[in-house]
């Protein structure tokens, strides 16, 4: 094992990109889980993957091509006024078949398909870092404003209608933010790793945390810790990053079963 790799400047930008996503995706995942829309992370990631792959075929970086598919998914969801996981299951199917068909019919399809599934974090450059930082800033500005009304809509589902509130504003803002988050996540961490990062930390935190504030902190702590472990393991053992992250998150989920809420 070459420990010098961990301090190689070549991997600093990729590490930073993944670190930002390991904070953001669990926070988005918490709100998706309370809305019972956790499958959104996978559905939007698949759509992002499909358009990311189409973009790659035309020489467009995944991190720019992927948001188009995810935003289209968010727009479709808003258009059909759908709540729950059904619409996201349809996105998984549409995204998967598109990805497979594009991969099968483009010259570099197989290689590109693998790159998308495995994750391209180690190839993240300044474009990826810029997009990720912008996304982080947008999330920082959006989440504090939309979280409270989104949670209220889950706990008191008819409050918005009874008070004639313009609820579409915060629901659409959040859906768009999730779409962008999953698109950037799929284009950097990898499709399944982005989903796992939005799904597993909230899964653990919801079971263990005593309240919502701790749930937020715990999910971010799980996200960052598992990300750092996966980054080091994948680098030292020369493994693809995406599967390594999913493996670490899966182990974390299993280990968390031994922890009881106090």
């Amino acid at each position, binding site marked *: 094992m070459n420990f010098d790799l961990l301090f190689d400047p070549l991997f600093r930008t990729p590490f930073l990109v993944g670190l930002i996503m390991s904070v953001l995706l669990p926070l988005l995942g918490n709100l998706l889980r*309370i809305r019972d829309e956790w499958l959104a992370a996978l559905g939007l990631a698949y759509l992002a993957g499909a358009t990311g792959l189409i973009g790659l075929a035309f020489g467009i970086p995944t991190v720019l091509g992927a948001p188009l598919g995810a935003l289209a998914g968010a727009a479709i969801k808003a258009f059909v006024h759908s709540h729950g996981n059904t619409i996201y299951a349809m996105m998984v199917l549409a995204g998967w078949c598109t990805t497979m068909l594009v991969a099968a019919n483009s010259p570099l399809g197989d290689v590109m398909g693998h790159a998308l599934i495995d994750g391209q974090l180690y190839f993240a450059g300044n474009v990826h870092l810029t997009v990720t930082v912008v996304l982080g800033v947008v999330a920082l500005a959006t989440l504090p404003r939309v979280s409270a009304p989104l*949670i209220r809509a889950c*706990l008191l589902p*008819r409050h918005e209608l*009874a008070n*004639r509130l313009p609820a579409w504003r915060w629901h659409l803002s959040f859906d768009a933010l999730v779409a962008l988050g999953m698109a950037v996540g799929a284009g950097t961490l990898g499709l399944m790793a982005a989903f796992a990062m939005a799904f597993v930390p909230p899964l653990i935190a919801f079971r263990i945390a*005593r*309240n919502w504030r701790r749930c937020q902190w715990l999910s971010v702590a799980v996200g960052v810790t598992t990300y750092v472990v996966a980054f080091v393991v994948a680098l030292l053992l020369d493994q693809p990053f995406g599967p390594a992250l999913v493996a670490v998150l899966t182990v974390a989920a299993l280990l968390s079963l031994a922890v009881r809420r106090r």
Partner: protein
Amino acid sequence: MSVTLLEVEALETGYSAPIIGPITFSVERGHVVGLVGPNGVGKSTLLKAIADNAQIFGGTVTRKDGLTIAWMEQQQARLPEMPFDGWEYLSYAQATRHAPPERLASWLDQRIDSLSGGQFQFLSCWAALGGSAELVLLDEPTNNLDDASADALRTILRRDGAGRSNRAVLIVSHDQAFLEGICDRVLDIRG
């Protein structure tokens, strides 16, 4: 001068067809109004119509401009996982204007998905009453409540300390004795 918050005029309401009506009444600020009637008569549907959640087939519901509503439904949302403690629940329900009743104190540090049905019912009542909404709708508030909680709720609804003079409360119940002890007037909607 009394301010009318809600005026219901010859209202016929339901979902695919009318369930209840025609019914006429009004609710003025500072009043606690009860609607009593047997199960299935359409009391909850009437509240839904007032809160824009049911179809109106005839008559009118006129709300004061900008009226704010807090609504405790008969079936509250109890999600499979709710990692919120009682304080957070009240905060998201915007029910932090008044100090919570003593009866709630020992439950507020617990996760709300660990509360019993009766405890959650009482918390939900306070989530509607503890805020600044001008009109509070309570749908069968005594369901699942033990005697101590029902007494505590009665006390809250009787006293003026919970901002009663600044708002109105409309309570639907099949429990006439409960309503007669707390309401300024009780309307019988047996159909």
